């Protein structure tokens, strides 16, 4: 029988998690770091407006995760439908691009600008990559100074790609933290009967890199084995230990190749 019973470990954890705001504890330092990096990189790019958009679901939609500049607060959490605007293109094509005259014609920017009251004129957008996967888009908007703004230069485009690498690592860490928090909430929610298969199914529908899902899946499997009893737990830990010993030996000798 599992220890997921009232007044058991599960209940204690739940109370703890409710007391401490785990969501912000896990993700807030990361969003702050992303924000800080945006400020530093934007000043290097000669711009005061920048934003980070991340994948929202599996259909190619985007969501503003962080932003700096005049309309930052309005932008955060705003959604961008799949394939819309420069950001949507950069997400799906993996190619960075810069536009020097977004203009006032009917476009995605017109829609966003209408909501925020801002005027987008020049834009540089570059993909955020982690482990070969495009996980979001980094955008710099307008150059500092008075309009009409100068276009972003090819050198700035290359520099943006370097900033994008650093920001992508943070975004990935943020996504992991969020995933971890969501998993915790799901497992520890009061009326959860802890139906492991249901948790697994939920995990499989989660967006995020395959790597996350696999690790989480492994954790769930271990949890399930542990719930079967002491003998099973002991067997599992012996199996895993011998696997680790084998892998270490393999790494040392370089002899045992697949």
């Amino acid at each position, binding site marked *: 029988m599992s220890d997921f019973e009232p007044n058991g470990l599960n209940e204690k954890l739940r109370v703890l998690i409710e007391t401490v705001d785990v969501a912000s504890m896990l993700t807030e330092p990361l969003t702050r770091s992303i924000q800080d990096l945006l400020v530093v990189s934007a000043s290097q790019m000669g711009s005061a407006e920048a934003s980070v958009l991340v994948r929202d679901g*599996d*259909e*190619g*939609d985007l969501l503003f995760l962080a932003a700096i500049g005049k309309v930052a607060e309005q932008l955060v959490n705003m959604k961008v439908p*799949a*394939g*819309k*605007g*420069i950001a*949507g*293109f950069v997400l*799906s*094509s*993996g*190619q*960075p*691009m*810069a*536009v*020097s*005259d*977004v*203009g006032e*014609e*009917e476009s995605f920017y017109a829609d966003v600008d209408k909501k925020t009251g801002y005027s987008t004129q020049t834009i*540089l957008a*570059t*993909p955020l*990559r982690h482990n*070969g*996967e*495009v996980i979001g888009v980094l955008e710099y908007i307008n150059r500092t100074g008075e309009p009409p703004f100068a*276009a*972003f*230069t*090819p050198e700035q*485009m*290359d520099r943006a*790609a*370097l900033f*994008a*690498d650093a920001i992508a690592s943070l975004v990935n860490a943020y996504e992991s933290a969020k995933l971890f928090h969501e998993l915790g909430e799901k497992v520890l929610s009061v009326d959860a009967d802890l139906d492991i298969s249901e948790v697994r199914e939920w995990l499989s529908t989660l967006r995020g890199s395959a790597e996350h899902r696999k690790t989480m899946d492994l954790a769930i499997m271990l949890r399930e084995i542990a719930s079967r009893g002491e003998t099973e737990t002991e067997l599992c830990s012996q199996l895993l230990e011998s696997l680790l010993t084998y892998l270490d030996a393999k790494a040392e000798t370089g002899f045992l190749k697949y």
Partner: protein
Amino acid sequence: MTAVTGYEDTGSLSRATFFQIDDSWRSATGLGVSVAVIDSGIDTAHPELTGKVKTSVEARVDNKRIVFDPSEAGDSAGHGTACASIISRIAPEAELHSIKVLGAGGLGDGQAFLAGLEYAVKNEFGVINLSLGTTKPQFFAPLHDLLDRAYLAGCVVVAAANNLPHPSFPSVFSSSLISVIKSEETDPLKFGFHFGEIIELTAPGVNVRTAWPGGGHRNLTGNSFACPHVAGMIARLLEKHPELTPFQVKSALYAIAQENEASSAGV
């Protein structure tokens, strides 16, 4: 007259090739050459492009497979229209074929454009413009296979290089395709090359004025816009020299790029 020397290595066949191409391509228009644009679609109603796009198809997921249907969706992102306008300025009489693989939801990154490339190779389009790429390692092998098939079918594939600190596919494959990076050159016909590097040709890609869906124009920067310049040049070459193999096209482009660089240097 441009003298071209190259060393062709296709695995089963290795040989040196020597040939000459006359200058007639300089005034060619790409007449009779088909150019596929694998991208976000093309706005066929744009004044710069009316009558130039011969077919338009778009990717759709059908029972986990990607199939192509005739498309009237145009271009929601603008990128494909921009690339098409660059090609058609250099090769105004080339036949454009739009293969829309971006923009629609639910299409996996890389997977749809792989299917688009396969579609283009099956249809044996003379030039295939790929202003996009993927860094996912799992696409390495299938892309390699497709590029080999393109080579054997005589399709010349031109891809935008990635200016990010990651290798991107297909632009790192050097043997069976032509990879392009942006330069600040303003003459649309002037391209250059980086000898001995993976990224090979350079073409104008900074602040390029392009068509944009809805009839307007944009000034765009990116390797994506350098790539179609070279696609247009290849259409011109193939109009005058339809017998050239993809390898010979590549060798000819190097020879011309060298001439371009010599003339800019005042040699």
